[in-house]
């Protein structure tokens, strides 16, 4: 076998490895029901959930609780199916969080009641560019 062939095979092997890992490490978009099912099956890979904050009739956010030292908070989120879930985030409340039209939480269930977000992406309304995205991740 020529060196070129060995090299070629090596490249193909690494490329396959890359593809397999990319698929394996890719996260997925879920809702809270499927995310919980995953967690119960022992799959604790972080997943993405898209949804909005829970609001009362007058449009103000309910269920936002900031910890005493202001370094973490929990909030109530409704996923696209309308299921409500308490989410914990171990960072201070991002400014404008209450105004977010849409939030994407990336994380997993810690126990059956609580979803822990490692990262939160928010979509905030702005005057003209309505798709402005902000990362609240650090």
């Amino acid at each position, binding site marked *: 076998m020529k060196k070129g062939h060995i090299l070629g095979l090596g490249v193909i092997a690494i490329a396959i490895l890359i593809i397999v890992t990319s698929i394996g490490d890719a*996260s997925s978009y879920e809702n809270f029901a499927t995310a919980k099912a995953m967690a119960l099956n022992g799959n604790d890979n972080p997943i993405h959930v898209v949804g909005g904050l829970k609001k009362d009739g007058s449009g103000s956010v309910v269920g936002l609780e900031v910890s005493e030292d202001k370094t973490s908070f929990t909030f109530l989120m409704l996923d696209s199916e309308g299921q409500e879930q308490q989410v914990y985030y171990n960072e201070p409340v991002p400014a404008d969080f209450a105004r977010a039209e849409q939030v994407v939480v990336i994380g997993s269930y810690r126990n059956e009641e609580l979803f822990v977000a*490692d990262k939160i992406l928010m979509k905030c309304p702005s005057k003209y560019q309505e798709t402005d995205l902000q990362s609240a991740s650090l």
Partner: protein
Amino acid sequence: MINTFVGNLGHFMVILAFVSSLVTAYSYYRYSVASPLDKPSWQRFSRIAFYIHAIASVSIAVALFNIIYNFRFEYFYAFSHSSRSLPIHYMVSSFWEGQEGAFILWIFWNVVLGLILIHTNKSWEGPVMVVFALVQAFLVSMILGVVIGDLKIGSSPFILLRDVSNAPIFQINPDFVPEDGTGLNPLLQNIWMVIHPPTLFLGYASTLVPFAFLMAGLWTRRYHEWIRPALPWAIFSAMVLGMGIIMGAYWAYVTLNFGGYWNWDPVENAVYVPWLILVAAIHTMITFKRSSTALKTSIVLVIASFVLVLYATFLVRSGVLGDSSVHSFTDLGLSGQLLIYMFFFLLVAVWLVARSWKHIPTSTREASVYSREFWIFVGATTLGLMAFQVILPTSIPVYNAIIEMFGGVSNMAPPADQVEFYTKFQLWFAVALALLTAIGQFFWWNKINKKELKEALVTPYIISLVVSAIIITLGKVYDISYIVVVLAGAFTIVANATILIRILRRSSFKLAGGSLAHMGLGLILIGVMFSSGYSDVISINMSGLTYKKDWEDELNKENVLLWINKPLQMKGYDVIYRGRYKKVRGVSEYVKADKLASTDQVNEAIALEDIVVGDRLYYAKGDTVRVVLEENSYFKVEYYQDQKHQFTLYPMSQPNPTMGLISSPDSKNFLSQDLYTHVSAINDYEEPEWKEDQIFEASPGSDFFMNDFVTRFEGGEVLDELEGFSLQEGDVAVQANLVVLDNDVEINLKPVFLIRDNRVGRIPDVNHDLGVKVEIENIVPEENKFVFKVNTYQKDYIVMKAMVKPHINVLWAGTLLMLFGFCVAIYRRYDEFVKMRDKGLE
């Protein structure tokens, strides 16, 4: 008054630029195929066409800048990207904040490059400029802003606000011009954002040059001659693109809050990938020049680098990244146009390559393991794999979009922890590269055999082991994978330094580019390893007083809450937050925010006290001062070690009406590390919600507690004059002198009680830092007592994060060395090209 002239002029220039680029393309095509007799006249005509295109392109930029510079807010572009408070250098940033401005910048650079090429090349001018002019036509079409039926071509930067906005004011008054624009994104108000985009776009633009030479070569059947003129440009492009990437990384490090210089964000990946491919292309092109191998690889890589730049543009600007990136642009409806642009050049390139494939010379000789070519080829392959590993997951949103286009459903999301995901591959690829450069460089002069190679490598090998041992011991690197990184980095530095010394001794410095750049790579590896691998969050509350819930124990709290003036023990330092400050023009230090009262004028304030730094009086009380970007507050944080003040940092934050809290870190730079501090949350400061009244009675000399502060009532005094108020005959003004003790500071509060004709006036004193407002409710002379009414709210605080980044300077030094190496290489290759051209062997 609406000034429509400048916009119409700009729009006309866009159309002129578009038409002239098409004319240039056609006439250069005719020039390229014309008989020698007709050539001069076609050449003259083509050049004039391109000059017209150049003038039109520059005029577009001038017109747009005029709109921004003169605050013509009747134009959407100025309104949405600029404001009156911006200093001139940030107006430049406003110019390219929007996509249209970015395209104009790109067009501008292509014009500059085109003019240079016309005047440095002889036989290449025609075919190369055909490619150039076609690219320009596509780019200009992005800002054409022409609507034919339902088809919208390009997004013009010269549209008026009234044509975009549905605001009812325009129905009442079509000539309405807003007072002020919405301003520049505060994150872009940074000096690096003034120079980073032009550099990056010059990098983008210059990838066109090697591609154009390649296309010209394939078209005119000069299958390998294109390499010589293309090579210096390819190196130039890689250098500039690399510089742009590094500036972006540095900007992110000093301005953004994510705590690093590289986040593997899709937008960052989108420029990193073409750069890797371009670097691979340079290496195979060099190989070809020396040994006539790897021509086909070079061709594929040059095409790939150009197309990947277009793909990057598509990713960033089409909106396809959607919610997976922090800084993708809004969709201007250009995705279709961008795709056509990309596929046009991809297909033309593939067609030209396919047509010429069997004519392209290949070497049938198998490269020996003891040859430079072999190692360079392995290196280029590694670079290619690195690029593949990054672009594959970065494109996940594209796969989703394609699946959805065909009616499918895909819920694939990018990796949740991008940094970890990419690092686990890229780090080891980079280690492999470092080793390859170390070995590869020893085949510099010619082929050497196994024995010679061993001999040549033995000394650098031993030296690098010693160097690594020192780094590992001093830097306390005990992680096995990090030790491997140090070894690889040290080996490439030492091996390339050996080569460098040999080059300097035997031949000229201009051959040293490669070894310098490779030494830079070694430094970058070591710098990245230390600054990222050993980055340490020190904002951990060590006071023992924490508020954790039970189950939170395993989570690290990486932020600390700092109450004003109250010391807090963190890892390695005690810190005290001292309040909000502003930057005032001309004053050498930040000025405490409560010394300034804002006015109606943008960026102007009245000094409430004398502003003194050291012995120098900058402004007297009552003076008008110029504030630098008044929305920005700087939060003074003092760092102590062993009770001694070490340094003070001023991380910035601004509550932005459209973007929320915008924060920028502040770092203390030591030679061996950076201490990086940023604000993650702040108190609502401006419009406090005062709690209910509290009433205190105190006689002079007594103490009472106000919002938990010990307050001493020193006594009252009758005032002869009252500031901002003219006292009349018979008025009585009494001031109470209160001293509030907050940890180590004393704050004086002086509420005033005023009596005029049996009426009472109360002038409260407010301190925002402490969150108190105090008023003299009444004076009871019989009992020698004052009655105070006190309202309180949250005292001032910040939530902050701090981390140590060790040896980050090694990283920056490495990047500079690498760029310098590129520059040396550019000089050498360009010199070669000029010499050959002048011999007529272009």
